[in-house]
């Protein structure tokens, strides 16, 4: 700068002041100045527009402008140029205003000397330069601030955007969480989460319902609370194992059933699956558990029903065969196989024809297609066969009663079930019953015929002149009446004893007492028949109905006496044999044929039916004896040799020490 002259624009209309200032500048010779003078504001502005100056010396009072206005106009046109204002003495206020408006300095006319002027100008230039630098720095700073601000605004809007997004995410999270919570709560299954320490962290409403605990009760509690004691450690191990397996979820209790424990201590079977989640670096286990008590019960009931059905099928006495539409057996129960003489396996898949005999009972050939079984198959009718015959494996036939029921599946007939039973025995019983009724009616009618006939004759008066015949008819009538009465009593007796309607009035009796009384009763009859009665017995206590045993003994003795020839002996004996007493009634009569030894104990089965008439028996005595003995848990039988005699045996239980049977 020292080398370059300082270009000064002096704006001054007063030539005296111009001169003064030129002189002052010249005083300071070492200072190179280039001074340009203009008198008017307009000229100054014009000059400034063209020329570069380093400093303006400005008089505020110009011909075309006055005061502060002069300064501001110049300053506006040359902001970067330092201005030193030249003022008069009295212009203090104006001076302050000009300094405030941006003038670098002011000089009071008349008080200016050379050095002051130079110093003021240099100072003004320096100050302006500093100001300019400051201003530039300031401008730069402002620019940076503006840039930074813009940046900040940008960041801010980005942040706002992010915030908005985040809000949306949070909202959707909240919705999802609400939805999840809702699902958790409405689920019927128990949903339970535990942390790695097996403490319960989640317990939904389903779990509350199943386990009976409230969520508050179990949160933070160990999972063991919900497990039966015996499973707790095993379960813990499972969870630990699961922790180390790679999968995220798995089903529990696939191999073994798992059980839960309710608040009230009861256990229940459950089905569960478990999943593992990593949350914040920690593992969370969530089990979904379902109470399967009802299902188990249903399964068990079904299984039991199956077993029951199976049991019924296999244990039922009736034969059961399932037959398909082709007439082949589809199932066979053991009873059916047994009745037909096959094994179940042999019968399965066989044509139903194997059970049907080649001929009917009347000898005509069996027409299979006309069989009611086929009709049931074809038409789906329930058919009941009352009098049919089936054929066994060995070709023998047996009478059956069956019911044939169609099996329908979705309204279609798929086959039939034949339930049948062998009625051989029943038919035999029925025949026996018929025979018995026939025999009984004959037995009853016989004395009735005699009574009726005798009394009719007597009543007619035809025999008034034949008193002998009349008397004989009366005897016949009386005897027949006795017989009829005995018969009726015996029939009723045997019936009632056999059916158990008569209770044996049991008490402790001694063998000797019973035998003595029986011998006494029969003594007269024995004497009349010329038969000796010999009784011998050990005195043993019995637990029996004494009247009924007397009835048995007198019956047997009476038979023995009846069939003994005059001069013979009838023996009555009793001896102890283990738990029983064995009675024997032995005669020397004609004996009983071998083939009748059993049947004589049946009703109306005398060896010779004429015996009944000849010996006043009813044909029921031995049947009654057998019934009485059987009611005492004893046995009765006979041993006999034709022409030598018979021995009837029966056993009776000994009285036990405690006096009960």
């Amino acid at each position: 700068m020292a080398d370059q002259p300082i270009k000064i624009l002096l704006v001054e209309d007063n030539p005296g002041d111009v001169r003064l200032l030129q002189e002052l500048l010249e005083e300071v010779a070492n200072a190179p100045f280039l001074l340009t003078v203009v008198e008017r504001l307009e000229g100054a502005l014009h000059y400034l527009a063209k020329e570069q100056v380093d400093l303006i010396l400005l008089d505020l009072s110009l011909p075309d402008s006055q005061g502060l206005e002069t300064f501001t106009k110049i300053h506006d046109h040359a902001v970067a140029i330092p201005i030193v204002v030249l003022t008069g003495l009295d212009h203090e206020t104006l001076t302050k205003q000009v300094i405030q408006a941006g003038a670098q300095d002011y000089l009071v006319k008349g008080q200016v000397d050379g050095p002051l002027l130079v110093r003021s100008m240099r100072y003004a230039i320096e100050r302006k330069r500093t100001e300019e630098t400051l201003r530039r720095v300031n401008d730069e700073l402002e620019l940076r601030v503006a840039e930074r601000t813009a940046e900040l605004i940008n960041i801010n809007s980005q942040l706002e955007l992010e915030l908005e997004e985040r809000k949306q995410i949070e909202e959707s999270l909240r919705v999802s969480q609400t939805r999840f919570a809702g699902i958790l709560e409405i689920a019927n299954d128990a949903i339970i989460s535990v942390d790695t320490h097996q403490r319960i962290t989640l317990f939904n409403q389903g779990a509350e319902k199943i386990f009976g605990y409230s969520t508050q009760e179990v949160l933070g509690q160990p999972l063991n609370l919900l497990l039966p004691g015996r499973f707790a450690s095993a379960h813990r191990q499972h969870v630990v194992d699961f922790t180390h397996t790679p999968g995220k979820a798995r089903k529990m209790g696939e191999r073994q059933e798992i059980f839960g424990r309710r608040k009230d201590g009861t256990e229940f079977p459950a089905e569960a699956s478990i999943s593992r989640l990593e949350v914040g670096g920690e593992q969370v286990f969530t089990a979904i558990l379902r109470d399967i008590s009802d299902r188990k019960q249903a399964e068990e009931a079904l299984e039991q029903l199956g077993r029951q059905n199976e049991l019924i099928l296999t244990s039922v006495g009736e034969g059961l065969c399932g037959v398909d539409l082709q007439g082949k057996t589809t199932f066979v129960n053991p009873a059916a196989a047994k009745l037909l003489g096959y094994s179940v396996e042999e019968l399965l898949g066989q044509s139903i024809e194997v059970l049907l005999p080649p001929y009917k009972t009347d000898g005509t050939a069996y027409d299979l297609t006309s069989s009611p079984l086929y009709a049931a198959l074809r038409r789906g009718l329930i058919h009941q066969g009352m009098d049919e015959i089936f054929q066994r494996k060995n070709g023998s036939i047996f009478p059956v009663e069956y019911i044939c029921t169609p099996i329908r599946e979705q309204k279609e007939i798929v086959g039939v079930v034949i339930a049948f039973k062998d009625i051989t025995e029943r038919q035999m019983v029925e025949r026996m019953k018929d025979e018995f009724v026939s025999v009984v009616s004959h037995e009853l009618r016989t004395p009735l015929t005699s009574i009726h006939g005798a009394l009719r004759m007597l009543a007619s008066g035809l025999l008034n002149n034949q008193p002998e015949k009349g008397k004989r008819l009366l005897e016949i009538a009386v005897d027949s009446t006795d017989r009829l009465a005995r018969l009726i009593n015996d029939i009723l007796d045997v019936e009632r004893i056999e059916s158990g309607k008569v209770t044996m009035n049991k008490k402790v009796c001694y063998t000797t007492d019973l035998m003595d009384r029986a011998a006494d009763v029969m003594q007269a009859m024995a004497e009349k028949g010329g038969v000796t009665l010999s009784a011998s017995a050990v005195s043993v206590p019995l637990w029996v109905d004494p009247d009924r045993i007397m009835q048995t003994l007198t019956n047997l003795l009476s038979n023995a006496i009846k069939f003994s020839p005059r001069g013979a002996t009838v023996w009555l004996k009793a001896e102890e044999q283990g738990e029983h007493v064995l009675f024997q009634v032995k005669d020397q009569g004609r004996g009983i044929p071998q083939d009748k030894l059993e049947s004589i104990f049946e009703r109306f089965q005398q060896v010779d039916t004429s015996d009944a008439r000849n010996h006043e028996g009813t044909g029921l005595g031995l049947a009654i004896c057998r019934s009485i003995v059987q009611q005492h848990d004893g046995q009765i039988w006979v041993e006999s040799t034709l022409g030598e005699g018979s021995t009837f045996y029966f056993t009776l239980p000994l009285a036990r020490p405690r006096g009960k049977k």
Partner: protein
Amino acid sequence: MKRILVIDNEPYIQEVTQISLETVAGWEVLTAGSGQEGLVVAEREQPDAILLDVMMPDMDGPTTFQQLQKNPQTCQIPVILLTAKVQDSDRRRYQEMGMTATIAKPFDPLQLANQVAEALGW
């Protein structure tokens, strides 16, 4: 005087029948206690008619009748069956077998002689 053989295993019925026929009709009555005995008596005595009981042990009425028919000495003797079974089917069966008549038991002893005479056309 007619001679009648009564075959019945029931002694009292036999006796009542005998007294009835003797008293009411004045016939001579022979008796037999079984079918077997009846065959013997019938052949030996040659009665005018036989009253035969159906239900007898050992040899029942129809069997006895068949035996009587087989024997030329007895086959011409008319046989009247005394039976408790009076169903038409039985009656027809017996008639088909060749029996003269069937009289139901229990019979009226005052009417029996008449029934027999009527059946035999006496």
